[in-house]
């Protein structure tokens, strides 16, 4: 099975598209890095005056984004009744791992591969320690994701091991928060998306139907409120910014649209997906717990 064919060996446009999408950020980074090195007349390349730092940040961003995308597969399969999506879950997860490894490698480049310093920095700086634990977790999941390893572990054990991804997600988001300089807009946004993804699971486990627009809207609203709460708490606990000011900013749109709104919009977008789903012919038989609620 290549990264662009399904289990029967047929070309899968879905897999090919995800493969391409997974490579694009790396290709862009490589090109941007080369733009600085190649054009000797240009004082700075596309990555700015501190290219390694910029690349570390972008690789970290993509690691967390792909991790979230891999976590979106299961709820989206249910919501959009699109079981085939499972085909790309492993690829998304492995991509997250590869970007995280690139992120660490670039960090090592930044420290000139001074192993002693790298290790001592990771041990000394709390946010790096957290990132390291998250990366170790991702490596554990990545190396147990081959067909052979899955067979060896058995489905149940594999699932149990891989539920570690939720802890890894929390650690990665926490790492993102702590490394920020005062402004935690982007980590808040990612934390909000994570909430959304977790609420879909929670709802499913509690027996709610992820095909019901009502349930989906409720999840979107709750995740948005949760996002605002996380933002409020972070500023209140970790910074000198009056958190009330941040909370109030949720209702002011002149300067920025706060993360909670983007989370709400995403949740509502997903609801729309569930609404238009019946118009697309693929009427596959409902399965699992969802089946009970689907008719409600």
């Amino acid at each position: 099975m290549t990264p662009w064919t399904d289990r029967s060996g047929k070309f899968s446009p879905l897999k090919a598209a995800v493969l391409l999408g997974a490579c694009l950020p790396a290709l862009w980074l490589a090109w941007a890095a080369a733009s600085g090195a190649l054009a000797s007349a240009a004082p700075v390349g596309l990555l700015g005056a501190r290219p390694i730092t910029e690349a570390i940040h972008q690789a970290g961003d993509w690691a967390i984004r792909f991790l979230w995308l891999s976590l979106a597969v299961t709820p989206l399969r249910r919501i959009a009744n699109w079981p085939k999506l499972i085909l790309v879950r492993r690829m998304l997860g492995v991509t997250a791992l590869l970007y995280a490894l690139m992120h660490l490698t670039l960090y090592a480049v930044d420290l000139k591969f001074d192993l002693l310093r790298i290790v001592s920095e990771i041990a000394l700086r709390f946010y790096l320690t957290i990132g390291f634990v998250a990366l170790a977790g991702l490596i554990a999941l990545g190396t147990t994701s081959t067909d052979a390893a899955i067979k060896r572990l058995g489905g149940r054990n594999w699932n149990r091991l891989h539920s570690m991804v939720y802890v890894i997600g929390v650690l990665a988001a926490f790492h993102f928060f702590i490394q920020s300089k005062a402004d935690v807009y982007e980590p808040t946004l990612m934390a909000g998306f994570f909430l959304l993804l977790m609420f879909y699971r929670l709802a499913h486990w509690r027996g709610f139907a992820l095909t019901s627009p009502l349930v989906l809207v409720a999840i979107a609203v709750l995740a948005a409120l949760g996002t605002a709460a996380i933002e409020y708490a972070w500023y209140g606990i970790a910074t000198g910014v009056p958190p009330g000011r941040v909370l109030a900013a949720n209702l002011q749109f002149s300067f920025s649209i706060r993360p909670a709104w983007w989370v709400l919009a995403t949740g509502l977008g997903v609801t729309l997906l569930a609404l238009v789903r019946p118009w697309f012919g693929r009427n596959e038989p409902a399965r699992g717990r969802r089946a009970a609620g689907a008719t409600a």
Partner: protein
Amino acid sequence: MLAAMPGHSLQRNVPMTFSIHRRPSWAISENQATPEGVYLDRRRILQGFGLGMLTAATLAASAGVGRAQDADPTADLYPAKKNEAYKLDRPVTPEEINGHYNNFYEFGTAKDIAANAQNLVIRPWEIEIGGLVETPFTIAFDDLVRKIPLETRLYRHRCVEAWSMTVPWAGFPLKSLVALAKPQASAKFVRFETFLDPEMADGQNDFLYPWPYIEGVTIEEAGHDLAFIVTGAYDKPVAKQHGAPLRLHLPWKYGFKSIKSIRKISFVEERPIGLWEALQPSEYGFWANVNPEVPHPRWSQAMERVLDTGELVPTQLFNGYAAEVAGLYTGMDPATLYM
């Protein structure tokens, strides 16, 4: 429109990251259309591809207008005589690098803030001098800058974010300004404040930060010859992204202490609390003296990345100015001096 074109800053140098965070970078206001001098050097034109050439031609055509509007009335003061006492252990950072890697949150949090910073209106510019002084007064920058002889000094600049650059600043020692202000004996600190104009400076709409930017030093520090008021750089009036028309530079302290675009200078008895200290007291203190042994809570300060050369070099105590300034701090608590 012209606004999208000046310089390479909008086409290049902008780290392209996915972000829905801020107003898009192309949303630039009108007065940016003619940045300072619409300066076109040959290299920059050659760098560009076809589009660049076209841009250059268009700009050159409009450059006359741009110059007339923005002609700096203090341009004749530069280059200022070099003060040979201040030498560097490394090359001067090229202007194009220095001018595209700045923290100027008043105009946004991106490092390449040069294009946005052109919105800064620097004329007329008055400086209010007050607090515990003989007689408070307001002085136009153009008058002030001709009251004290200017000199050029090569200084190292060390950012708290563990990068550094070297700049050929021009200006005068802060102590000359202090002498002009005639502080009373009760003045213990000098407090600096920049402009507050969210309409001009978009970043000041960001509610996270307690605008305006404030910084402060002790009266002893202000009297030290190294403390420098910058009015020029690279043999011309200082660029807007560096904090035109006048800014502070305290080369032995982390960069955030060196406030840009000063509007108000007050002599006070109580220790001023700077913007960063108000925001994150655990990370940005009042003293902020450079010390490689005292890490920032999130990273080591042992080394610094030198812009342009990209070298990673050891950071020095007081950023290499220990011989000059260490005496200011004898007998003080080292627990707070370096953060």
